């Protein structure tokens, strides 16, 4: 049942021009960033050759590319997630799901998985760029794989939060704006000078900050606590979205 809802979500995405435009624009911008990064690498490569344990092509090209992708997708994700539930509620199609023998959990998971599938596809397209370096050199496949996984983890949190906000806000565009605000806040929360202090607030800000969890992962330093951060963000958002849909029945 979840799969049917996810498949419908994905299909409707690809029936709208927006999804195609987003794919095209994001891939184009990232391709440009990728080429710039390759250019940088070819320029500094002779100097790197002499260094012991010099950074390889993956570290210089792929990691910054994925970091840039994370930033762009923070802007883009709300554009797709905001419709997930808010638009169905507005169009009166949410009733179809609510009156069908389907639980709120299945509805929310279906929406989440459908959107995540779209973004996972985008992540693979992005990964294809550094992977193409294999034509001329040997990329660090494990590092590249780690980058893709990190991006998907990050997108999973983006999508889950987007679905949650879409379930809670009536107006789809407002849901997009709030999702964008929430994601951006998680990104910049560690800009405060408090972060450097050993206070509780400082520790909380360090923990909440998204960059502090994905940057080490992108650099290839795997820590289960960082992975857990994104898993928790995803699960809490989905649980709240399910709870919100159930509340529809009680208060709607």
């Amino acid at each position, binding site marked *: 049942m979840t799969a049917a809802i996810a498949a*419908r979500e994905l299909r409707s995405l690809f029936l709208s021009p927006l999804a195609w435009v987003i794919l095209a624009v994001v891939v184009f911008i990232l391709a440009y960033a990728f080429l710039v990064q390759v250019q940088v690498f070819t320029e500094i490569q002779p100097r790197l050759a002499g260094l012991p344990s010099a950074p390889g092509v993956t570290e210089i090209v792929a990691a910054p590319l994925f970091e840039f992708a994370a930033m762009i997708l923070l802007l883009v994700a709300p554009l797709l997630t905001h419709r997930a539930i808010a638009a169905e509620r507005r169009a009166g199609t949410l009733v179809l*799901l*609510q009156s069908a023998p389907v639980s709120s959990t299945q509805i929310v998971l279906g929406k989440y998985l459908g959107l995540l599938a779209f973004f996972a596809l985008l992540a693979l397209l992005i990964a294809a760029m550094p992977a193409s370096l294999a034509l001329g050199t040997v990329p660090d496949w494990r590092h590249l794989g780690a980058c893709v996984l990190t991006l998907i983890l990050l997108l999973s949190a983006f999508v889950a939060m987007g679905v949650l906000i879409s379930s809670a806000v009536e107006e789809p565009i407002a849901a997009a704006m709030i999702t964008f605000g929430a994601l951006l806040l998680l990104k910049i929360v560690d800009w405060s000078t408090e972060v450097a202090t050993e206070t509780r607030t400082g520790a909380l800000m360090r923990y909440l900050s998204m960059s502090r969890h994905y940057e080490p992962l992108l650099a290839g330093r795997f820590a289960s606590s960082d992975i857990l951060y994104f898993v928790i963000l995803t699960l809490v958002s989905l649980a709240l979205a399910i709870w919100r849909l159930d509340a529809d029945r009680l208060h709607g």
Partner: protein
Amino acid sequence: MASPDELLIAASRLSRVYGERRVLHDIDVAVRRGEVVGFLGPNGAGKSTTMRILSGVLAPSGGAVRIAGIDLLEHPIAAKRRIGYLPEQPPIYRELTVDEYLRYCARLHRVATSEAGAALARVKDRCGLREVGARLIGSLSKGFQQRLGIAQAIIHSPEVVILDEPTVGLDPIQIREIRQLVRELRSDHGVLLSTHILPEVQAVCDRVVLINAGRIVLDTTLAALSEATRGWRVRLRRPPPIETLKLLDGVQRVDMLDAQCFLIAGPRLDSEAVARRCVGEDWGLIELTPQDRSLEEVFLRVTTGDLAMEAA
């Protein structure tokens, strides 16, 4: 299990509160297999709220709903498999084709993949959608979209079909087709149908439930209703005071239509006795005509509050 009198919808003491506002007061609704029940009431009386509760979209603030014997609140998934629901606004995805949409609905309602093709063909036949299977829903006329809404409600052959104003926005030919469809559904389903169009109730329903301001004010079979609302029009050249007419044998109500013309009604009214009396008293009997009070009249009287539950 398919006993003809089986209760398919049994809702008891349903109430619903929105914030401070109580929109349903202890409503009872019963629909049996093989029965089409017309659900009537003015706008804002609580029709749609009741239907949303019966279809499991909304939880009641109090009361219980059993669908074919299954508690809707305790076992929503099992109960909902037996319900088909068309909300006021058909829940359609404009970007999908008719076939894609119906296949999705079949999956949502857990129709086995192997049977989905047959189910699709069947509802498309029934709802007159055979020619438009490959069309985009957004490009269909309102009438087709409405039929598609009905098709999604019956694709899984549910025992209970709940239709919220299924003929709204349709032309007379389409309305006739939909009514025919509803009549066909009666044979193996229980149908609850809300409408504003009173002749529609007379055309397709076996029973009528009238709701006003969140309360059921009338629940009776159509046959009993027409029996109870039958009256006689009497025109007298020299009418007695209206009180005298009220004392006639079997007369329960007298309405004065003009100075000489009255509408008298009562379940045990004997026209012969009335005629004899009129002649005997020398009231100058000019006319004595049987008159069916239309459903519309009942509706207006009940909803404006001056008809007691005489027909119940």
